[in-house]
């Protein structure tokens, strides 16, 4: 049995939750990859098959939480790919494990750097005196704005939507104000109202799909539609581990577990938590791989999975 080989004192779900708790600024995707690395370290496996099923088991446990599903899925998929590509046919399993752990650390380090790379790229687009609209709270948008303010000393104004239902926008405003950025909280329904007065829109993403569109907190699509109508640039800031192999054509195509929290999945009256913004509405994506047009995303995914 695969999970028999996991030591008893280690619970995937607990470790995962603990990771998220310890570092509030960590994305659930990173936490998932961290957890999987821990699983890799703690597990004894004799064959790759066992390793695979152990990891699959762990992924299933992590997906059984109410955190942003899209990032967990893309993060763990990337990790699986990493395991597949790092396999060695001619070495004993123990040695393989050491190499994998070593590479995993480098991999994780790279991922952790990605947010500051993105912040650096977004910097030139934030100009003095500009007005930015953002949706709710996104860690990477937060860091980009803070960097632009503190490191480059730029003065600008940020409109933040309330971001229902959990109102994460409150926290975003507080965090922006803490470093001295002029932040204004607006209602989710006021997006159309403020759009004419902003210069650009910057949002984060939970997942970036193959078409170059994004999956993000509910309301992002509305914002993108408004931005397009008023000819404002709509920029997305997302780390590359959020790229995922999914090709939704409309909102209904999004997987149910992305849209609804666990206990509401059978309830057809439930509110969706995320929506899909098609690539046509996105001006540019800032990623740690560079500034990409939406069409470049599929190129990256093809390079990895082909």
């Amino acid at each position: 049995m695969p999970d028999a080989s996991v030591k008893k004192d280690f619970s995937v779900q607990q470790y995962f939750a603990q990771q998220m708790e310890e570092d509030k600024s960590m994305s659930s995707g990173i936490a998932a990859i961290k957890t999987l690395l821990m699983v890799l370290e703690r597990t004894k496996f004799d064959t790759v098959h066992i390793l695979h099923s152990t990891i699959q088991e762990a992924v299933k446990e992590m997906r059984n939480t109410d955190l942003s599903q899209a990032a967990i899925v893309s993060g763990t998929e990337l990790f699986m790919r990493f395991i597949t590509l790092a396999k060695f046919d001619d070495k004993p399993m123990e040695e393989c494990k050491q190499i994998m752990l070593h590479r995993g650390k480098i991999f994780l380090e790279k991922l952790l750097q990605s947010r500051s790379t993105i912040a650096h790229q977004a910097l030139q687009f934030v100009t003095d005196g500009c007005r930015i609209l953002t949706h709710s709270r996104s860690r990477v948008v937060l860091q980009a704005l803070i960097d632009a303010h503190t490191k480059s000393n730029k003065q600008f104004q940020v409109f933040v939507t309330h971001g229902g239902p959990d109102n994460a926008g409150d926290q975003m405003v507080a965090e922006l104000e803490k470093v001295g950025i002029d932040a204004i909280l607006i209602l989710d329904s006021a997006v159309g109202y403020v759009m004419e007065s902003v210069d650009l829109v910057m949002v984060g993403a939970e997942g970036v799909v193959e078409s170059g569109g994004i999956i993000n907190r509910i309301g992002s699509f509305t914002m993108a539609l408004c931005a397009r109508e008023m000819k404002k640039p709509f920029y997305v800031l997302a780390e590359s581990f959020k790229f995922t192999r999914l090709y939704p054509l409309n909102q209904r195509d999004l997987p149910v577990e992305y849209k609804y929290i666990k206990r509401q999945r059978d309830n057809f009256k439930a509110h969706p938590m995320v929506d899909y913004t098609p690539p046509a509405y996105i001006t540019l994506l800032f990623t740690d791989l560079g500034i990409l047009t939406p069409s470049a995303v599929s190129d990256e995914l093809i390079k990895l999975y082909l």
Partner: protein
Amino acid sequence: MLNLLFQSNTITIFEFSPVQILQFKRNLTFKRQNMVEDFDISPHNPPLKAIAGLIHDVKRGKLEGSYNITVKTLDILKKIISVCDWKSAEELMKLIRTQGKILASALPQEVVTANITRRIIKLIREEYDLLQAKVHQITDDSQASLHKLVTQTSDNDISRDYSKPQEGLREALLDHLQEIETEMETCSENVSAQAEEHIHTSEVILTLGHSRSVENFLKRAVKKRENLTIIIAECAPACRGHHLAANLATGSAEIVVIPDSTIFAMMSRVNKVIIGTHSVLANGGLRAACGAYTVALAAKHYSVPVIVLAPMYKLSPVHMCNVEQDAFNLVECAEGVIPYNSLAAKFAKVYSPIFDYVPPELVTLFISNMGGHAPSYVYRLLSELYHPEDYEL
């Protein structure tokens, strides 16, 4: 500070003789030492005389047109490679980068100088890697990608060391520069060779102002196709469209010159819009002559395809962050709009900007010397043309 530098430099027209080269190499080292003493912090390297000469020529309007400027820059950079004293690829890259930076900051409008500099730095990287690869086995591909993120190990992650001297690098570089030179020479021909694929008999073509590539392209089309009607928006106040009309008039096509204000009115009968551009931005947008946006919007309204002729050296890895961004636009002398001695000039402010930004959605196709490309493909061309680390010079 940079401006100061230019003033302090005696500007001469660029002519190389071996003695001169030696002289200004000596000057260069001398000045560098001087600078260190003067400013203490590590200063900008002074521009080589040749570079200063080029800047001077462009500013005085002696050297015009992005093709001529590119060729000239290429020529100077080639001479830097062949005669300057450098020991390693790193040193050479630094030298070229510094000179490229000076050019770019002195002539912010002429992005082609930065483009060709990037291209040459990439060439140096490639040649060095190639020569090194003969000795050690190293993996290629420095581009950041998801695939690399997943497969990398610590050993191939260390950035490459260019500081080792490499035999045969100079010869290999000069050899390959020849290829770029040939490409430059043939690119106009290669672009216009595609005219027949896009222009058919009895079509109505609209263009704006006077672009050399468009002129050659249309000349070719006029030769090969019958009953063409070419509508030329004159592009006031310089009215360079008149030159184009004069140059094309010898053929069998019907030439119509229209004022810029009638672009929209004429668009309904146009089959294709063919324009040139000053440069192509990283997202596939254009920085083109003022009026191009009007043309593109009118074409969009009537669903007329917009074809943009852009040879590869005009592709620039720069993003347009903001229309008011520094160095995006220029205002021309306004005398052409309202003469200084007219009554209106006393009371009215007059502006005459030179460039328009055209967003990529409005462009149907780019035609370069390598073939036709969709605007969404520009990022791929850029990653083939330049090294990502050189996007910022």
